[in-house]
């Protein structure tokens, strides 16, 4: 963020002047970015895990129900 932004007092001003400064963070970049990256990965896993578990279960049960229905139709002689 450039000079203009800094002049307007009260506006949020980004601390780092360049992408390079943001990435390296005066030598601490590797630590900060590692911590944030891992946190995001763990959060994504914690959210997607149960979502996928629920979806997989519903699909499995739906297939089972369909199979049972077909077997029932065959034994009743009503299969088209």
């Amino acid at each position, binding site marked *: 963020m450039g000079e203009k932004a800094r002049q307007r007092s009260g506006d949020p001003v980004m*601390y780092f002047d360049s992408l390079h400064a943001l990435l390296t963070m005066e030598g601490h970049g590797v*630590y900060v970015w590692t911590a*944030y990256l891992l946190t995001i990965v763990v*959060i994504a896993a914690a*959210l997607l895990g149960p979502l996928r578990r629920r979806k997989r279960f519903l699909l499995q049960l739906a*297939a089972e129900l369909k199979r049972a229905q077909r077997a029932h139709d065959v034994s009743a002689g009503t299969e088209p």
Partner: protein
Amino acid sequence: MWSFFHKLGSPPWLYAISGVILRWLLPLTLLALAVGMAWGVLFTSPDFRQGNSYRIIYIHVPAAVVALAGYYLMAIAGAINLIWRMKMADVAMKAAAPVGAAFTFIALFTGAVWGKPTWGTWWVWDARITSMLILLFLYLGVVALYEAFDNKEAAGKACAVLSLVGMVNIPIIYKSVDWWYSLHQPASIKFTGDSTIDSSMLYPLQLMIAAFYALFTCCLLLNMRAELLQREARSQWVRKLASAVETP
């Protein structure tokens, strides 16, 4: 009032209401997390003593705070299951364990990565860090113990007892930085008295703590919903849900 508790014990009602809550809470949580992370990483000034490494505080402290709060929730749900045999409390306890483990892991990992540039070491066996590691093992212990039983009712009871006994660890974690000499700094935010942290750092930290609480709630509800379906697989409402699903 009582009708609310009756509903709370009803799986289809819990499944439906958690779906409604998640539809609002999940997007809000992700937004708050994104804003809080960007605020902490991009817009705050570095700490005058620690430099930029302190930016890890915005995930480390919220994860640790919520990991502890999650343990209370898990232990209380376990107690409710033991005393009143409430099945939904058992579902909540089982759902809380892996989420708590994930949050504790985040706190420990970010602490190690923060410790390297600040203390010069990834890990020390001091009171705060060791008691947090025990918290992780307690959470993982509940997850493992649940899987070890074929009888789910017995599993719920055993896990409830384990999590209640593990409560001993909680005051130790809180007080560890005061009771023992430690590398870990004492708390900067206090409910009573002045916080020893500048407000420009405090606000994003508070936002992140709120966001992590919301995130824990989302993860807990998602786990509970998956668990509810599996437990109620034979009931009419789950079959109805499944029959509405398109199979390939």
